């Protein structure tokens, strides 16, 4: 225990202080919070009922009654975006969870064992990376049937090698440290060391990568839904809304404008949040993406 990084009692408070002084973090945090609140609000209230089709109101331009206009079935686009936010926000964390839950232990295991095990796992990683992620996600959802759950799994599988790589690289950089040597001398097993010392020390990197994958997951989910492989109608999803908008660009461009902006804002918020966290945890770090 004593070997773990020092976290004095005021550590958390100063961390939060530093965090909110960081412009990227603050902006990203506020945007992400806004999206989350919108998604949660949609469970209790939306301006209009998204399951009710009112053909008389179809493709209305944005106005005071319908801020973002209506779609080809007369549904309120703002309400649909609110409900669609649930979908995007639910898919990405689960997919990141799958990637982290399987990838990180694999990567840390490879780092701890080294040798043939490491080599084999890394070759397996190369293998998954050789398959273009989107293509494989399309294959998985097309084969096992379209739907939100299969989309999550498809995106999750491609998060595994990403986290395996980060977990392994992080662990490899910690293993030669002196406090690890001390822990080994004290008779701790490799598993114990991994759980007690390696994991807490690479948590930061994992958190930063998590926000990146979260953002990428939202983009991937939108892409799959656009192709009709994600959440199925009548459940509104941002990607599907863009698909419906495509053939109606001439009469109702707002049908494409607002769902796309919802995606951009959400992804931007998460990326800023990730940049901010990376800055705060390691001021020297400059994120690659």
């Amino acid at each position, binding site marked *: 225990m004593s070997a773990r990084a020092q976290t004095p009692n005021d550590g958390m408070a100063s961390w939060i202080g530093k965090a909110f002084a960081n412009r990227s973090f603050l902006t990203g945090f506020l945007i992400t919070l806004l999206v989350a609140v919108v998604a949660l609000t949609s469970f209790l209230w939306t301006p209009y009922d998204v399951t009710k089709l009112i053909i008389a109101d179809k493709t209305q331009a944005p106005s005071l009654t319908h801020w973002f206009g209506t779609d080809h079935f007369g549904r309120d686009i703002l309400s649909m975006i609110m409900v669609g936010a649930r979908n995007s926000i639910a898919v990405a964390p689960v997919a990141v969870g799958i990637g982290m839950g399987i990838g990180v232990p694999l990567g840390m295991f490879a780092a701890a064992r080294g040798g043939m095990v490491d080599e084999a796992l890394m*070759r397996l990683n*190369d*293998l998954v*990376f*050789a*398959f*273009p*992620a*989107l*293509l494989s996600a*399309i*294959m998985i959802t*097309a*084969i096992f049937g379209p739907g939100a759950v299969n989309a999550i799994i498809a995106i999750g599988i491609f998060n595994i090698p990403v986290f395996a790589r980060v977990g392994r690289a992080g662990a490899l950089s910690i293993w030669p440290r002196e406090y690890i040597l001390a822990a080994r001398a004290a008779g701790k097993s490799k598993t114990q060391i991994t759980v007690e010392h390696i994991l807490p020390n690479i948590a930061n990197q994992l958190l930063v990568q998590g926000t990146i994958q979260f*953002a990428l997951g939202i*983009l991937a989910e*939108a*892409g799959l839904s*656009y*192709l009709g492989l994600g959440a199925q109608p009548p459940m509104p999803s941002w990607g599907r809304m*863009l698909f419906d*908008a*495509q053939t109606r*660009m*001439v009469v109702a*461009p707002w049908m*494409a*404008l607002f*769902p*796309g902006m919802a*995606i*951009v*804002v959400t*992804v*931007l918020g998460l*990326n*800023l949040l990730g*940049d901010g966290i990376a800055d705060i945890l390691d001021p020297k770090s*400059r*994120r*690659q*993406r």
Partner: protein
Amino acid sequence: MIAYLAKRLGIATVTLVLASLVVFAVLEIVPGDPARLMLGMNASEAQVEQLRDQMGLNAPLIERYLHWVSGLLSLDFGRSYTYSVPVIDLVLERVVVSLPLALIALALSTAIAIPVGLYSASRRGAAGDAVAMGAAQLGVAVPNFWFALMLVYLFAVWLRWVPAGGFPGWSAGVWPALKSLLLPAIALALPQAAILARVTRSALIEVLNEDYIRTARAKGMPYRAVLWRHALRNALIPVVTIMGLQFAFLLAGTIIIENVFYLPGLGRLVFQAITQRDLIVVESVVMLLVATVIAVNLLVDFTYAIVDPRLRGRS
């Protein structure tokens, strides 16, 4: 250097073989009998069985795998179930759309990203840097297919400068064909450029902190020359890595963009083949794309060795 390249080549070969096993196995467990699909629901069990024999679907697994692989190696991909033409013809017909599209997009993205990265890195912290990186931050967040829709609205629907979609074919002339690839290429390139610009900037900043840069400056070398001759060259490794990944993504990941613009490319071919259960097409095209990704990565590894002399000594 030889040892390094040999190891890379070995890894690439192993990955390729494993990938072929995975593709074969996955399509083996896919529900849906292609013979049944071709004959329709009304065909008798005996007819289906006869066609299965004809298509070689009843042969043992290993025999079918070896047959498939040897076919791939001799560029005989078999015949498409739905189009009833050799798969290689379908592929060649589509490659002439997808490959130019990917190349144009990559060229555009590089042409935007490297200068922006250089500009930002050399004016780190200044207003210009902040604006450029703000734009890049936004660019990374934009889904390329939404950006494509916006481009269509602006340039095809509103200004009527370019067609909204479709591809006239190269036989219609180089300019009309290029014109219909322009918007898709821009849509693909911009988000990629945003990523590449950020990578270029951060790699350059890292290099600019090195002692040898200070030495070069101290001996009186102009800043511009230092930037191009020393900094950019040393920053190239991460940049080339990302470019390799992006090219692979562009070749295979254009599925959505090809759908937006109704382009008859490889992505749409494989997407339609998947929905129609035309497994032989899926198998071949996916394998081809995977082989391309592996080849590009290998090329990137070789580029490392050329760009970075330090790697040549290591294995």
